[in-house]
């Protein structure tokens, strides 16, 4: 993806086979056939969308409606290679500060207005002003040297720009954006348009093929029906009876799904981890001691946790990035194997043989309910007394991220783009580095990475950042939880998953059986 000279990339999307990005599970029993396979695809959305503005794409399965109606400037493959989207060609300068993209001519939005550089600029300028931008657009400027060329310039080297900004954000009609009426229907140039007559907001969204889309042939289904179904019971029943062709299913329905003759795609999902953010010991002095943090890594039998708590639907890990990521250090032996005695010795060496107390927030509903008591128990073995603080209500997340609690647990990241993980959890201003404490080594390594002149150098520097966080025990990675997507093999197939976050099949992954 990064080289000294990036020229036009006209490669086909290289989809990582399911054996790497996801594992397919099969069974032999028959399931229902859906009417007219190939014409209509019916899938479930576990939660409703909150509006049609391109910025309202929530990610994960909730992004499907947006993938249907909007194009992005470029697309990213599972390995974060950039491939054509609205843009047919582009350049990214060696310093990673200027991304120049040339937009394919002749495209229009569904309201008839043209897709051009001005439209892209209008979208990005709007994204920059939104409070939900997350700071990812800070320092970017947008110019249009000609009607079909957009130049995105970053004040600082930003190798993640294509992946974090340009692949993810859909482009809507500027006229539509200016109207402010972004909640009833979308206006994009994507492979599908919303069929209002067959749509009931909150219940079912019907999308019909846009034959004028540049990539129409890549989408084999003429109609996609997305049903909002929150109950896993209803989802599995609808899959079994042919009312759905595909849907996400929770881990506890794995066996039933297989027994029903459905197929499953298993994706490694997110990394559940402890985040020890008080590296300088300002809030809890003990957490400022690296031996304490290392000891905390050594009290978890991750294999047993994966087997007992997750019934095998999780993979134990001692690194944050997934094995397929550039940041993953292959061959790195776990420096903190499960060893209570050794952990106690480290605590004694740090002067905390008698342990200490720490508040730790618990937020229900993100899959940590069974793990939290285990964490409390295990840390208790080295005399760390965890006081659980339950966070609820609309301010819970704000409080979680406020810096009040230097020790957190959360299923985060596992981004195929590990730069997002660095931006989200490692750098000083990162949202999940809640104490925002400076670290000269990290800053130095990050700068070195940004100034890499070859891909090999870049990868080495990227790995060095994560090795540093391992050495300093900033995190306690525990497991990658599996996320499952079930589908009827008689009506749809998913030969590969192109989601670089390994969370779900993308809309263009659905194929005819």
């Amino acid at each position, binding site marked *: 993806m990064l080289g000294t000279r990036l020229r036009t990339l006209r490669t086909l999307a290289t989809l990582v086979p399911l054996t790497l990005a996801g594992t397919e599970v099969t069974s032999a029993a028959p399931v*229902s056939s859906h009417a007219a396979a190939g014409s209509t695809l019916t899938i479930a959305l576990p*939660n*409703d*969308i*909150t*509006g049609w503005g391109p910025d309202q794409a*929530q990610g994960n399965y909730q992004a499907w409606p947006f993938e249907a109606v909007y194009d992005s400037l470029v697309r990213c493959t599972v390995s974060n290679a950039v491939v054509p989207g609205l843009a047919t060609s582009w350049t990214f300068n060696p310093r990673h500060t200027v991304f120049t993209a040339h937009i394919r001519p002749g495209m229009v939005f569904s309201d008839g207005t043209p897709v051009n550089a001005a439209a892209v600029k209008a979208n990005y300028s709007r994204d920059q002003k939104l*409070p*939900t*931008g*997350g*700071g990812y657009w800070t320092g970017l400027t947008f110019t249009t040297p000609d009607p079909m060329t957009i130049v995105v310039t970053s004040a600082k080297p930003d190798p993640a720009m294509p992946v974090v900004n340009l692949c993810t954000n859909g482009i809507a009609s500027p006229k539509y954006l200016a109207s402010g*009426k*972004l*909640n*009833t229907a979308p206006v994009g140039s994507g492979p599908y348009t919303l069929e209002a007559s067959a749509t*009931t*907001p*909150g*219940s*079912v969204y019907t999308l019909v093929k846009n034959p004028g889309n540049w990539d129409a042939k890549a989408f084999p289904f003429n109609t996609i029906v997305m*049903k*909002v*179904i*929150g*109950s896993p*019971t*209803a*989802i599995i*029943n*609808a899959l*079994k*009876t042919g*009312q759905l062709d595909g849907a996400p299913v929770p881990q506890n329905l794995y066996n039933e799904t297989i027994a029903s003759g459905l197929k499953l795609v298993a994706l490694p999902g997110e990394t559940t981890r402890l985040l020890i953010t008080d590296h300088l010991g300002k809030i809890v002095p003990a957490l400022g001691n690296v031996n304490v943090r290392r000891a905390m890594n050594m009290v978890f039998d991750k294999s047993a946790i994966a087997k007992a708590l997750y019934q095998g639907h999780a993979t134990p890990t001692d690194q944050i990035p997934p094995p397929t990521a550039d940041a993953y250090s292959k061959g790195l032996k776990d420096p903190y194997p499960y060893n209570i005695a050794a952990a106690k010795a480290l605590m004694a060496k740090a002067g905390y043989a008698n342990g200490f107390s720490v508040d730790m927030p618990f937020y229900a509903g993100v899959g940590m309910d069974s793990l939290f008591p285990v964490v409390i128990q295990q840390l208790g073995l080295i005399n760390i007394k965890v006081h659980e603080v339950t966070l609820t*209500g*609309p*301010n819970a*997340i*704000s409080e979680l*991220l406020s810096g009040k609690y230097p020790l957190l647990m959360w299923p985060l990241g596992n981004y195929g783009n590990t730069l997002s993980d660095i931006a989200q959890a490692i750098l000083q201003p990162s*949202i999940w580095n809640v104490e925002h404490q400076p670290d000269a080594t990290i800053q130095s390594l990050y700068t070195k990475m940004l100034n890499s002149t070859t891909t090999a150098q870049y990868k080495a520097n990227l790995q060095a950042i994560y090795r540093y966080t391992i050495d300093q025990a900033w995190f306690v990675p525990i497991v990658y939880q599996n996320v499952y997507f079930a589908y009827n093999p008689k009506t749809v197939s998913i030969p590969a998953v192109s989601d670089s976050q390994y969370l779900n099949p993308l809309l263009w992954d659905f194929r005819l059986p």
Partner: protein
Amino acid sequence: MLGFLVRKVARSAAVLVVVSFATFLLIYGNGPGIARNVLGGSISLATDAQVHAEMVKLGLDRPIVVQYGSWVNGVLTGNLQDSFFTGQPVTSTLVNRVPVTLSVTGLTLLLTIVFSVLMGVAAAVYGGWVDRLVQLLAVLGGAVPSFIVAIGLVFALAVDIRLFPATGYVSPSQSVSQWAQSLVLPVVALLVGSVGSAASQFRGAVADALEQAYVRTLRARGIAERYIILRHVLRNAAGPGLTVLSLQTIALIGGVVVIEQVFALPGMGQLATNAAEQGDVPVVMGSVLVMIVVVLVVNVLTDVATAFVNPKSKLL
């Protein structure tokens, strides 16, 4: 009767105001939290200035009483505000959802009345094994939660034998037969729990009425038993039964939430649950308003029906 009706409606209106204000206070009380939630979803990076601006935009910076007054004004003009998240008018959202829930609860209530009266009367009149069977069914129906029944019905009659659809709702305007098919399993699931207790109540009331002196007198005059039961006994036994039915209706509104989840019915229950989880307060308030109105209407109708069968109750 008119005076009685006016008094009941006036009392209901007063209850509506009190309950809606208390609910509004609870739901809209945390203006900054609502605004932050709207701005950022689950992880809000909005600054305090942005939160305040959003509060002003949504009208949440005004005193709570002023906000309530504005909401009431909207209710009276048919405007329940717009969803904070989807921008859809709450009124139009409710228009889509209410018929689904009313279809399920309305049919369930109608069938509950029919079956509970038939079973209650049969149990009281025939006694013996009929009576014991009705009582057993009442206990079983009350003991097994409706969602368990629903799941069992789905497995048996939708998944194993594809007799009915496992999920979904079809509007009668699209197809009456498919509408009916889509309601069979949800209605039966709710019926199992509601018929039992109502039938028990009718059974007891009819049994009591059959022991009254006027029944002996009517029998002595040679009046047909069927006429005695339908014309006299049922009328006198209806009061307690109607009260139980009104309580059943209120329970149905709560129970339908789970049933809508099991069958993926896009009704009020699902709407209210999702809106509450999301913090979409206008939708929550609109849902609560509908539910309050339904409960109050059912209470008024019950009182009117009770007054019709027992004029002495009009004195209350």
